[in-house]
């Protein structure tokens, strides 16, 4: 591309004039340009603050049928727990239905009448836990909290009794020492910010170019292109360059916002981050151009772009839903989503700080994707121009 002196029949590519023209056109629509430059960072800020999976501020109900000193001690553990914001005291079993139906509480702990008797006599004391399973993810977490409280109660009672009996202190035989790497406080922001970056960039890139070619048709400027000496490859490259620059600028603002506001620092190499992002952007812009050459009208281009990127990238890229939990056929489908590869590389570089050994295969696939979309859109465009 940079070659100044054409060797034999390798022609000089007229990319720069086309890129310049495209730039001018983008600049004219101030709102669109502003949207493309600023919106990605704004989205990141908004969503980064708002989104997390942590199950906080949830409420629980406790129905103590036993109502003895022992059962009240047990119930108090739930009332004083920091896992739950509110704990409602139930006085009637029918209350349970209402509280769960209208979503006031996520779960109810029922302490049956023979609880204290069972506890002191040393037999198993059944306790009933009812959880709202509608949101399975939240329910699992709530169950984990409740189980932890019960476990804590059990070991307390055991330890107390034995120290009273024999004086010797009893401890649990296994001492679990959990350690969490890369994100010790398990902050959702750290998990979600790289995902948001991949998601927002995909949409911004595909959307920004998906109208680029088809617009010329609808506006009637395509005749000028046909009579101009520009080749399809030059047109495609010329249309990609300005948008790549815009997208790179918005990537930088996104990363800065992530660092300043969410403390998501880039642990790995900046160079690799740049290379991977660049290849991904070129591929996504190429996908947008491909859509643009296939669509026929701006409306159809818009619809294809949204349908092909928005929900699939959100759901199939591993952004929030772990790919390994999907059924095998759907896992196969996720290989069609380029954001999937980008996301693995992003998380490796930003959060883990590891080198290309962890994502070289992803990088190769991204490069293949970029080559494929650019080539396919050039071929499509050649057909259209004839």
């Amino acid at each position: 591309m940079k070659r100044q002196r054409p060797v034999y029949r390798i022609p000089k590519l007229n990319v720069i004039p086309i890129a310049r023209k495209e730039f001018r056109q983008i600049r004219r629509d101030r709102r669109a340009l502003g949207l493309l430059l600023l919106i990605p960072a704004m989205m990141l800020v908004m969503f980064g603050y708002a989104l997390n999976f942590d199950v906080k501020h949830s409420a629980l109900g406790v129905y103590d049928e036993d109502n003895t000193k022992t059962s009240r001690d047990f119930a108090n553990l739930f009332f004083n727990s920091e896992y739950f914001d509110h704990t409602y005291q139930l006085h009637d079993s029918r209350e349970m239905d209402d509280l769960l139906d209208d979503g006031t509480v996520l779960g109810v702990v029922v302490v049956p009448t023979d609880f204290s008797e069972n506890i002191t006599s040393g037999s198993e004391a059944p306790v009933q836990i009812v959880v709202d399973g509608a949101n399975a993810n939240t329910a699992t977490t709530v169950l984990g909290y409740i189980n932890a409280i019960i476990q804590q109660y059990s070991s307390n009672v055991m330890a107390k009794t034995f120290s009273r009996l024999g004086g010797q202190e009893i401890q649990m035989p296994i001492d679990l020492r959990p350690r969490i790497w890369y994100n010790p406080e398990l902050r959702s922001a750290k998990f979600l910010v790289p995902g948001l970056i991949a998601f927002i960039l995909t949409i911004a890139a595909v959307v920004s170019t998906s109208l680029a070619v088809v617009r010329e048709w609808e506006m009637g400027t395509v005749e000028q292109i046909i009579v101009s000496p520009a080749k399809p490859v030059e047109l495609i490259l010329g249309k990609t360059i300005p948008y790549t620059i815009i997208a790179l600028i918005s990537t930088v603002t996104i990363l800065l916002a992530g660092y300043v506001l969410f403390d998501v620092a880039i642990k790995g190499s900046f160079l690799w981050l740049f290379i991977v992002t660049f290849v991904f952007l070129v591929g996504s812009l190429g996908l947008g151009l491909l859509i643009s050459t296939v669509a026929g009208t701006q409306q159809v281009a818009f619809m294809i772009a949204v349908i092909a990127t928005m929900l699939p990238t959100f759901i199939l890229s591993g952004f929030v839903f772990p790919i390994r939990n999907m059924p095998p056929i759907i896992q196969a489908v996720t290989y069609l989503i380029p954001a999937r590869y980008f996301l693995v590389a992003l998380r490796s570089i930003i959060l883990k700080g590891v080198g290309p050994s962890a994502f070289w295969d992803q990088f190769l696939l991204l490069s293949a994707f970029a080559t494929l979309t650019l080539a396919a859109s050039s071929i499509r465009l050649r057909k259209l121009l004839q």
Partner: protein
Amino acid sequence: MNATIRTILEIVRKEFIQFRRDPKMFAISFIAPVFQLIILGYAATLDVSNIPTVVCDQDNSSISRDLVRKFSSSGYFTIVDDVRRLNQIDQEIDDGKASIAIVIPEDFDRNIASGESAPIQIIADGSESNSAGIGMSYASMIVASYSQKILIQSLQAKGLASRIPGRVDAEVRVWYNPELRSRNFMVPSVLALLLMVMTMILTSLAIVKEKETGKMEQLAVSPIKPYELMLGKLLPFLIIGVIDVILVVLFTNVVFDLPIKGSLVLLLGLCLEFLMTTLGLGLFVSTISRTQQQAMLTAIFFFMLPMIFFSGFVFPIQNMPPIIQYVTYFIPLRYFLVIIRGLFLKGVGMAALWPQTMALLVFGIGIMSMSVFRFRKRLG
């Protein structure tokens, strides 16, 4: 009056002719939603199972192997590798081959036999915070119950067998979704998202398209009144939307084996109500944009993305900061998600859903009148 209806029908006919002429529009409007529903519905699951786990059992005694077996037979963990040296774990987790590592140090067996506390370490890859948190809580449950088993065995050996106080047996019952499949929760939500996306992309270019291609001038000088044009534009999309509703509800029911616990009539009625708000929002976008590109960007970034993220689709609203929680009240999808989950999973009726129904109604009327107002101003 008759003339009005005739004019509207004429516009509807013209729109349908245009629609029929483009086979891509047909495919996008009717085949894409069904396709997406099936793929996305199967994909959208937060269930944590088969977490790839690497084991570093330096003790390698019968008791340590027994503990590892407890992990692998739980269904939550899949042992992908067995390593000897600690630094091999780094590599596996760095490369993403394993998300959890179990480290059992050398004298595990001896510590337990001597009654001392035997440490074991679980390492989780926190870059996937949700899976890591849930995996950790599964791991601690497994270890705690195993620990308790050992304790009770050793006490029994000392003759303290029958009287061990404080044993609480938790009997868990899960309502609405007994197998705790997140799919049951997600599929109705995916359905709602799809309806929102489909209807908004149909209408958000509807008017700006005419404007950009210069047909608006022709319409402005024609005797067609603004509201006639508006209705004529809207009706075809409403019809497409209704067909989409029927298609996706049908496929949800058949493919995902997810029966509608509430009333089907109520479900279809409330879907229609939701369609009014999203079609209205699309039209509104169309009236405030000058070019199709602007309309597209506005629709995506200011309407669709906030709807996806702030509606409570995967991210619970109660976790959001208070200011954002107020913002979510302006997200119509928020109300519709409550409605559609209530109808599919809980089987509730109007008695529980009327606040959401009212909110959607207010939205629908509000946004429709706003776009008619904007539209009138543009033509005038």
